[in-house]
């Protein structure tokens, strides 16, 4: 049986503008977590849980990163070390790491889409892949995890305004990548995912999608995405958030 899980907040670190990293303790969740899955987190005083991706796993701890954009993430930002979070998860289907052979892979992340790619990068590297990462942020102040990604492989940082790294969009640096990557993995805002998918239309790719959620487990049909298969749709919380790029209609 699945459970509602309690996770102790063991460390809170503001790591960039409006961006907070939480280290949460729960051995079961840590053991089950696959890159690309998310936690559906109850926020006191709020009707709906908030979906947040798993950004890393270390022993019994799970790391998440979130941006304070609205009242739920602001409330989440005000918790204290030692507090307990009530979560569902790990939820959803993660990236298909079992099917990836040792090869060159490209990771493309935008903003708060970067976190799940970190756990993915770590896992793929461990599997023998050569990982190249392209990470886009609004400005210099929003950049995070640069060092961590660089420790894993070649990493391009892109900012909208050029205040750090390359200036422009993540797709602007794709031409610079000369390595023959075989697969790409992307997570970020919808316009970015569309641009990436169109740009890399001949490369097999996986996209991690976001949508407003109710239940977070597949029961309420809030988070559907139209698909090209005969069913016509998939539920992001249950059948995603990761999809093969050609399956979903963006």
């Amino acid at each position: 049986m699945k459970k509602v899980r309690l996770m102790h907040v063991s460390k809170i670190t503001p790591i960039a503008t409006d961006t907070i990293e939480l280290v949460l303790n729960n051995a079961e969740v840590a053991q089950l977590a696959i890159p690309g899955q998310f936690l559906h987190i109850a926020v006191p005083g709020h009707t709906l849980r908030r979906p947040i991706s798993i950004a890393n796993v270390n022993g019994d701890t799970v790391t998440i990163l979130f941006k304070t954009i609205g009242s739920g993430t602001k409330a989440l930002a005000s918790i204290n070390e030692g507090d307990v979070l009530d979560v569902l998860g790990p939820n959803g289907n993660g990236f298909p790491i079992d099917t990836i052979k040792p090869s060159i892979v490209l990771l493309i992340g935008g903003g708060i889409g970067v976190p799940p790619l970190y756990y993915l990068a770590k896992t793929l590297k461990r599997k023998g892949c050569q990982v190249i990462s392209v990470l886009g942020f609004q400005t210099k102040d929003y950049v995070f995890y640069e060092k961590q990604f660089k420790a894993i492989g070649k990493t391009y940082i892109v900012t909208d305004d050029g205040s750090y790294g390359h200036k422009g969009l993540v797709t602007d640096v794709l031409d610079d990548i000369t390595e023959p990557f075989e697969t790409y993995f992307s997570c970020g805002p919808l316009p970015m995912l569309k641009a990436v998918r169109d740009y890399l239309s001949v490369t097999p790719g996986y996209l991690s999608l976001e949508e407003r959620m109710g239940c977070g487990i597949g029961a309420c049909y809030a988070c559907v995405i139209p698909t090209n298969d005969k069913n016509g749709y998939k539920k992001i919380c249950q059948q995603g958030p990761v999809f093969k790029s050609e399956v979903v209609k963006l």
Partner: protein
Amino acid sequence: MNHKLAIDLPGLALKNPVMPASGCFGFGREYSQYYDLSRLGAVIMKAATGTKRLGNPTPRVAETASGMLNAIGLQNPGVDEIIRTEVPFLASYDTNIIANVAGSTIEEYVYVAKQFNNSTDVDALELNISCPNVKEGGIQFGTDAEMAARITDKVKQVSQKPVFVKLSPNVTDIVTMAKAVEAAGADGLSMINTLTGMQIHLPSRKPLLANQTGGLSGPAIKPIAIRMIYEVKQHVSIPIIGMGGIQTAEDVLEFLLAGASAVAVGTANFQNPLVCVEIIDQLPKVLKSYGFKSVNEAIGKGILYDKSNLSCP
């Protein structure tokens, strides 16, 4: 089985009065991963229509103060597929199955009801005349007493199963609606469905839901549900399945006192997937602490038939 919790509704011998509300529990598969569905008094399935529907564009949900808005738009695989793949799954549990019947035309409602009537595993129908997210049909059926009576009558003609008509709260006079469907043969009422609401997303300056409006549910609407059940109970003799913002066993007791004979829990499942069983576990203690021996004993006990204290000088 705890006899204190048992309650009989037309066609339904419920082991307890708690069931998940339609649309908030899918067809039970996901929540069956959290607990044994045999614990539930019944399961009310997600709305079924004549043929498959893909529903509304996203975003389909939004959060509000002590509530949420939804505009799913009746997405479902169609009644025949539901009977083929979902009903058998639910039938493997020791609980009652209530089918939520929807459509855009009377013919569609009748078709769906007929199909469920032929399914031996379905125990009762809940006639969803009140979905505020269906533009053409639903909204009119649910807010016009004559239409509501007509559709109730047509469905009753093809259904040997008991029919609970689910009322919309978006009406001036809920008692008239209730009396109309009772007169048309409804075996029970389900109330309340969601209130039509809207949220505007400030950065985009647009309604947040792609469908613009959606149905408001959750604790925010509980006082409206209680009021409507209380009013209706004084004018009809068919039983009421109460719903709207239930989160705890205390809330269940409040609905019973107002006149409900059983309850459905919707939005709260999203906060706590175990909420229905937790309520069932708490209910005996809560009944006892307020001096009730059984669910049955509490029904309608909050109603003051003597209104002499109502003055407005």
